[in-house]
């Protein structure tokens, strides 16, 4: 009896290990639960990760070269007026559940995306003018989409549009990307299995992706995440904080990767809303370019980068990060730290420094508060350092940390704040994606949202330039316009850009082919080409 049991056991073990050897699993962490699996409604990071791993797109932006590559479409063409794009689709493709893919699915996806009641954030980026969007199915593998007005950078926007099936019973869970969601243990982990119907093959004709499944653990605590990486329980951390990076460099330097300046920057701005409930004399300061420039010059950006970010950031130049190879205006330099020049600028506006206290023309002491979100250690540090820097030119600054909703309420509804320190996450390279920040009528024009008409001449000029670049198709002409926008913003500093953070990541040595870049998703952008070393695969 015992012998039989033993035999059965060993057989089972052998079978089990054989199976483990053949199946490879990539593991990493999400910082929160994905809020939605509908690719059109994706807003936060976790859903975006799932969309990137599962969604099939018509064209794919190569995160490394920053150039477009064919995806589900083998060929595409934007019409001369910039309103229509025509795709030629790869033939014979199937969704993960076996439903076949055709031009009808593209038309369905676009129609869903542009549905006004859905409020798709991606849909908003396509909305350039009033009117309906039309999709024409020219053949089973040919489709043309026409927008009511020209859309700048139209082809690149499709990098974000994961195509959904018009007919599958599984709705958005039927996908065209390298993986599909097989299990969802809410709050704890997600399992993604290799999509057997994925279209890509490697040079040798082997079907991609190489890795059979992905396990996404939901893990908020970054300390624990790093610990699990060091233990080999997970294979990568997409973006890590400078402090953890430093720690990793000390303990396991082979795992740490610094891809240089990212697209993300930290900035502060003064409240310039004309109706805001703050004193008129303060409004007058904040609306003065001299005042803003003086504050900017009184801040030691080098120190911010060196101390607050442990050197893994660099002084920011302006709207566009140097990492954005095409759109960055390389004539601009970060504002230098120069308190003398700052005081001279202030004197032009009638401010006087006396006994370490700065007073304006009418004798009001210069004191204001900076709000930032509680719990973000880096912003709190920067605010505290700015507090000391500005004390050097006699300004008294109060740092107030607020929970995020309260902060948002103050900067978007009640406008009861004086200055705010926040960061901007850029997912897109094209200036079209920041239209809603720079147009003076936009809601995200944060220093003074929703202006009926531009409050200043330079805002009017930015409006004109932004509209001009949006309606131009030639990228070089667009860049000329946008360079000018960057210069005006550098000159006027409605946003005082502080630092550009580096893209830091951690990757297990067992993961090969990983080439971390600055664009999201930094580490697994080439997920279908990633490979796990065999010895690691064997132990799983």
């Amino acid at each position: 009896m015992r012998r039989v049991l033993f035999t059965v056991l060993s057989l089972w073990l052998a079978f089990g290990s054989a199976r483990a050897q053949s199946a490879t699993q990539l593991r990493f962490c999400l910082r929160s639960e994905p809020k939605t699996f509908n690719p059109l409604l994706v807003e936060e990071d976790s859903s975006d990760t799932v969309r990137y791993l599962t969604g099939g797109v018509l064209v794919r932006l190569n995160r490394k070269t920053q150039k477009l590559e064919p995806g589900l479409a083998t060929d595409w063409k934007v019409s001369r007026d910039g309103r229509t794009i025509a795709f030629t689709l790869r033939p014979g493709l199937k969704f993960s559940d076996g439903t076949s893919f055709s031009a009808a699915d593209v038309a369905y996806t676009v129609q869903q995306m542009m549905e006004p009641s859905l409020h798709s954030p991606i849909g908003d980026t396509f909305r350039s003018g009033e009117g309906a969007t039309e999709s024409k199915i020219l053949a089973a593998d040919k489709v043309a989409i026409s927008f009511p007005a020209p859309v700048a950078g139209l082809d690149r926007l499709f990098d974000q549009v994961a195509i959904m099936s018009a007919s599958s019973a599984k709705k958005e869970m039927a996908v065209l990307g390298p993986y599909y969601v097989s299990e969802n243990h809410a709050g704890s982990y997600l399992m993604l299995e290799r999509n057997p119907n994925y279209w890509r093959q490697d040079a040798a004709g082997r079907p991609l992706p190489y890795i059979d499944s992905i396990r996404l653990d939901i893990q908020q605590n970054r300390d624990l995440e790093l610990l699990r990486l060091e233990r080999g329980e997970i294979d990568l951390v997409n973006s890590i904080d400078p402090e953890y990076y430093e720690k990793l460099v000390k303990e396991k330097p082979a795992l740490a990767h610094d891809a240089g300046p990212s697209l993300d920057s930290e900035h502060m701005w003064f409240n310039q809303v004309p109706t805001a409930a703050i004193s008129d004399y303060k409004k007058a300061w904040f609306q003065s370019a001299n005042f803003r420039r003086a504050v900017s010059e009184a801040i030691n950006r080098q120190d911010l980068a060196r101390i607050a970010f442990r050197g893994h950031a660099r002084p920011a130049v302006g709207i566009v990060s140097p990492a954005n190879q095409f759109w960055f205006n390389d004539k601009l330099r970060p504002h230098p730290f120069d308190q003398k020049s700052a005081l001279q600028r202030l004197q032009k506006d009638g401010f006087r420094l006396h006994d370490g206290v700065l007073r304006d023309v009418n004798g009001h002491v210069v004191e204001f508060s900076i709000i930032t979100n509680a719990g973000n250690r880096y912003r709190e540090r920067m605010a505290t350092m700015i507090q000391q820097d500005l004390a050097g030119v006699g300004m008294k600054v109060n740092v107030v940390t607020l929970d995020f909703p309260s902060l948002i309420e103050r900067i978007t509804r009640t406008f009861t704040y004086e200055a705010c320190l926040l960061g901007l996450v850029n997912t897109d390279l094209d200036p079209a994606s920041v239209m809603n920040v720079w147009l003076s009528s936009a809601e995200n024009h944060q220093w003074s949202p929703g202006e009926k008409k531009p409050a200043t001449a330079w805002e009017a000029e930015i409006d004109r330039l932004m509209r001009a670049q949006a309606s131009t198709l030639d990228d070089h002409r667009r860049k000329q316009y946008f360079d000018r926008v960057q210069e005006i913003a550098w000159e006027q500093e409605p946003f005082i850009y502080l630092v550009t953070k580096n893209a830091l990541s951690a990757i297990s040595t067992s993961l090969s082919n990983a080439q971390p870049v600055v664009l999201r998703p930094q580490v697994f952008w080439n997920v279908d080409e990633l490979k796990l070393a065999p010895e690691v695969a064997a132990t799983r």
Partner: protein
Amino acid sequence: MQRLLRHAALILVTVLLGGLLGATLVRFSPAFGVDEAELDPRRSSASIESIRRAKGEERNIPAFYLHYLGRMAKGNLGTSRTLNRPVLELVVTRLPETVKSVILGLLVGWGAGLLLAIPIAMFRSWALDIAASTLAAILLCVPTAVFALLFVVLRTPGRLVIALIVFPKVFRYARNLLVKSALLPHVLTARAKGLGNLRVFARHILPNVAPQLSSLAGVSVSLAFTAAIPVEVLCDLPGIGQLAWKAALGRDLYLLVNLTMIITLITLMANCAADLARPQGARA
């Protein structure tokens, strides 16, 4: 039986009132109905406007609450705005995690507390008494959140923090109670009869302190649940404590109201069970 019913009615009323007050608190808190999505630069003005309108529901609190109670009677607890899922589902998936932590914490805390307190009372071991009392005194002085931070740094399971919170309270209370009871005349009589330590403890001390210990049990359950919030937030355990924290930060009306009611219910039930365990009239 009547006593039980009265207790149940009182609990029900308190829980419902707690829910109403919680809802009012959330509704009139600053930044109610604000969504992070509004900061998405891709969003057009029209789309932001519509988000705001959608969030602007639930303005009238009594109407909301009545409507909510009506739906709750049908088993529908509403939908969480921040996590985009039904509250019932969230609670059902998160509650076991917290209950696991709390039970483990209580077991370990009570086990350690009693294991140390009983020998001290029964064998009058001075060295053990001083060592254990000092340990308990120190543990009592450390904020819960510091424990949680240290446990993360030291890579120890976060659940045990609850044990460290429960242990000193149980130990100090049980030690004092047992030492006092061990000196009572009837215990002396029992010893004078020549009974052994074990028997004296089991028959003459334990039954007499059981009601007081059970009331401590009630207190310790609510203590453990209170400790669960910072522990789960800082140690990243997906329980209802963490959920409550997220709900508070996200002004998640439905979620917060439900969690308030659940936590109130658990606390009151624990206290009530302890109350009922005590003999009638003994309550000062």
